[in-house]
């Protein structure tokens, strides 16, 4: 795809990046970054690896990304016409929308009354997972590399063997009265 149709691949990528940036917004990677709107400080889904995750065959949607980008841009063009929003032809229509308009369109696409909701929810889930879980990387590697999402969430570092252990885990004292009808086995009566 990338080697055969570099322009189409580039357009696909920036379109999907713009979608992922709606799900978990981030700062622009450079002043001329068009895909990432820069709606919030700190890195978002794109910096967290959304495109890498979407392109993983394990997701089951990697082969459908061309269609996703095409459909998203068709919806964006229709949205722009409907709302009277002018589009900059130098970038794909979805990328040309403002962050607020991108967000409004994604709300429509993922709304319960949209018959195509499931498709867009699926794309949103993986964009979200890039930030929240770094599911395209081994988690210990992601943390060692300072993955933006896991770092922002405060996800703890593992032990040197790559496993998590928390020796300090309890306040260590009774913090409530137990239910008066608790049975000797510890169950509700």
């Amino acid at each position: 795809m990338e080697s055969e149709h570099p322009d189409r691949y580039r357009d696909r990528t920036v379109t999907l990046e713009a979608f992922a940036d709606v799900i978990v917004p981030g700062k622009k990677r450079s002043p001329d970054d068009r895909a990432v709107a820069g709606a919030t400080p700190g890195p978002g889904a794109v910096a967290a690896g959304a495109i890498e995750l979407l392109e993983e065959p394990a997701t089951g949607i990697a082969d459908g990304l061309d269609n996703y980008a095409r459909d998203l841009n068709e919806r964006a063009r229709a949205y722009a016409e409907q709302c009277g929003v002018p589009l900059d032809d130098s970038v794909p229509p979805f990328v040309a929308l403002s962050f607020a308009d991108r967000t409004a369109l994604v709300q429509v696409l993922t709304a319960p009354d949209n018959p195509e909701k499931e498709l867009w929810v699926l794309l949103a889930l993986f964009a979200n997972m890039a930030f929240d879980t770094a599911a395209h990387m081994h988690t210990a590697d992601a943390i060692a590399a300072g993955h933006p999402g896991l770092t922002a969430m405060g996800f703890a570092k593992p032990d040197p063997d790559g496993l998590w252990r928390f020796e300090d885990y309890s306040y260590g004292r009774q913090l409530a009265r137990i239910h008066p009808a608790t049975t000797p086995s510890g169950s509700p009566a």
Partner: protein
Amino acid sequence: MNRAEQVSRAAGTTAGQDKAEQTDILVIGSGFGGAIAAYHLAAGGAKVTVLERGPWLSSDEFEHDFKLGASSTRVIDFVAGDGMSVLSGNCVGGGSVVYFATMPRAPRFVFERHGSIGRRMWPAAISRDTLDPWYDRVAEALPVSMQSWGEVTYPGGLWAAACDHAGWTANPSPVAIDTAKCTNCNWMMAGCRFDAKRSLLLNYLPAAVSYGAQIRPLHEVQFLSRTGDGGYRAHYNIIDDEDYRVTAGQGTIEAKLVVLAAGTAATPVILQRSEAALGPMPPATGRYFSGNGERLNTAAMDEDKVRSVLGLSRPGGQAYAANQIGRGPSVATWDRLDGSLPEYSRFSLEQLYFPPGLGTILAQAPGAAGPTWFGLDKKQFVQDWDSWLTIFTMSEDDNEGVFGPPPPTGNAVRISQQMLGRGSLRYEPTVNTRRGWNEADAAVKDILERDGLARVAPWTNDVVGAYTVHPLSSCRIGDDPATSALDDRHELRGHPGIFVTDGSAVPGALTVNPAMTIAALAERAIPGIVAAARQRGLDVSYGAPSPDGETNGRRGVVSFTPNPLSE
């Protein structure tokens, strides 16, 4: 077991078979319903074969890793339906490998519920009193034990303190966890690396194997047909061990008796697909599904208020900031498990941990001005993740789930290589179910927002519908043939020799975690299955001790079993 061994074992069962393989008793599924049956029947002398659609992983293969393809996606399925999404185990050990090992018994009033049918929906033969001896057997076998307050995790302690502050009681939950081995890593849903969680891989299943039971992973039963001698033939696909969308082979196996325990989300689908060969299924097959009335709320705690209002602090100086620390749930409040309250107003509220991904996507940012589950406000909310406290509601729903026509194979059209699929379940919550959720949401809000402790919001149902980690009742026991697919001995009506022992047999929502009840019902069903097997000419007896040899539980059920037990 490594992948090469699994493929070898799977392939070895089909190649060049002109004549169907024979076994005495076929067990479909290896979760609580399958493992308990496999153990007792193998110990009683039957040749038992277990077909499990998922892989067989050992402790050292349970990874702390969110990467797609790690154990966190190999052993669990997320099947989206129309209005309800279901999480369930997909591996040898079934739900026990991915569960949080919280094992309360169902409260007494649950067995008296009327639910959607206007009269008692449990069989007359079952009450809390008559089930208690079977609960005892499970408690001995796993085993199940009480947690001390010193073992309660930070999130559980915080929930207890918040409940106490609001005038509620709170209980450390009974668990099947060896807390001495537990590292509080909170990777339970990926399988327990440390053998602290007492999954079926540590008790019933190895005991079954020691008595000769054969367990075959990556064997997904599609449908059943009849043999000429009154037995059954299972038709299965062999599943690729990495890409579950790929069928690597097919085969059949014949048995005199079948124990179907493929899980609530799969058992009715297998039966639906079997209708062409077996004839009509009971009308309740694939109906009356319950999501156990489940619902989640997530709060971002105000760390200063946790310290000043609740008086909590950790040795490192933080008040809380411990969302990641623990072992799933450890404390619940049972104040609303009050049999005098009206049906649909009774629920438990349990502190819970869900790992990121499944545990973050549906959480809504409290008070968001724009979109609630994605976007600017959600990102801000997620950045408070280490101060999150998630509360799990288990309430009384209306058994309103119905399975549509089965997919071509399995119980879902798989989307991803692992974990994610689209199933045929439809669920439109009734006003009763919504009432329970609303009352539970209000209670959580009252407890957690009191004196500014937190900001809280329920998870959205607009993205993947409602959701459950405890699917129940899709092929349930009962006394009324119109509303229960199984009789009170778990035999499928109209199809003698097929017994169903998984969560699908539970009549309705339990208001607490259901694994203990599913297991107790499976234990209770065994003597009847043994009797049916004997009628079919199998030389099998009932009376095995607990998997590790304990006999107290066996003594407790002597009066409930048809044949004298030998010590």
